[in-house]
């Protein structure tokens, strides 16, 4: 298995409706709820790249960018 680096977890703030699902369910607690409830990545380093947040997001507002080496 190639080594994976999590390049970024991006939130599309225009599409995100602030439901809080990603914040609540990310197994690694990567997000916090920021101003106006917009999720903010607080600890990218904790992210395992499981992509669950991407899958859960009802608004297709999350993109997990992974560098496969």
């Amino acid at each position, binding site marked *: 298995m190639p080594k994976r680096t999590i390049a970024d977890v991006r939130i599309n703030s225009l599409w995100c409706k602030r*439901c809080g699902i990603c914040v609540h369910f990310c197994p690694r607690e990567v997000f916090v709820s920021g101003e106006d409830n917009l999720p903010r990545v607080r600890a990218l380093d904790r992210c395992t790249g499981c992509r669950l947040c991407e*899958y859960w997001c*009802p608004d*297709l507002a999350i993109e997990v960018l992974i560098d496969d080496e």
Partner: protein
Amino acid sequence: MALQDYIRSRFFPHIWCVGCGHGTALNALLRAVETLGLDPSDIVMVSGIGCSSRMPGYVDFHTLHTLHGRALAFATGTKMSKPELTVLVPMGDGDALAIGGNHFIHACRRNIDITAIVLNNRIYGMTGGQFSPLSGPGVVATTAPYSTYDPAFDVMRLAVGAGASFAARGSTYHVVELQQLLVKAISHKGFSVIEVLSPCPTHFGRRNQQGDSVEMLEWLKANTAKLGSKAAEENPELITRGIFVEDERPEYCEQYERILEQAREG
């Protein structure tokens, strides 16, 4: 193709409420289509009327937004007339099983190669929270202020009883599983039904002490179990997820090809 290539991004953010399960279902469906590497020009999405039925507006397939309850009837014509198309039909619980129940059972019976995705939020979302034939007893709804007493259909039992050759249930909490179930449902040759437990925080959650979308997903996590799992066996109250039936039966359009041959021969 990337996920973004399958959507009409100019219409986003979509109209669904904060935390609506239908968005997550769309998400899983797009990933399933991506996994299968389908060409969007080979896909037709047909829907009825309801919140769930707004899905076609967001996908860059051939899309047909029809009438409440009738999606499968339109889809049957589309598929029969051009069998090489992949036909996906997202439906609400009321759409599929209240007004649309007859087309649903007949599609199951015929075994025509269409994938029906029943987005079950146990409520009429679009019209503001009336109960549906999937609400089940004890639910508070605008047309059941004293709570419902109507028994619910079990979509899996009904589909199987009507002759469906593929029937599966997933939930918007169990997203990876859901995507896999969708891949199987779409790949299945014949009629496939997939019921997606998809929370409506706005009309179901609020009135029925299930709270917002986060709490409703927690509920799904706590109240469902994999078919055949120990949890399911130990607690029959749990709603089971997984594939309920997966049969090989002659597909309808293929059967018609045989008639064509027979007729040509005389």
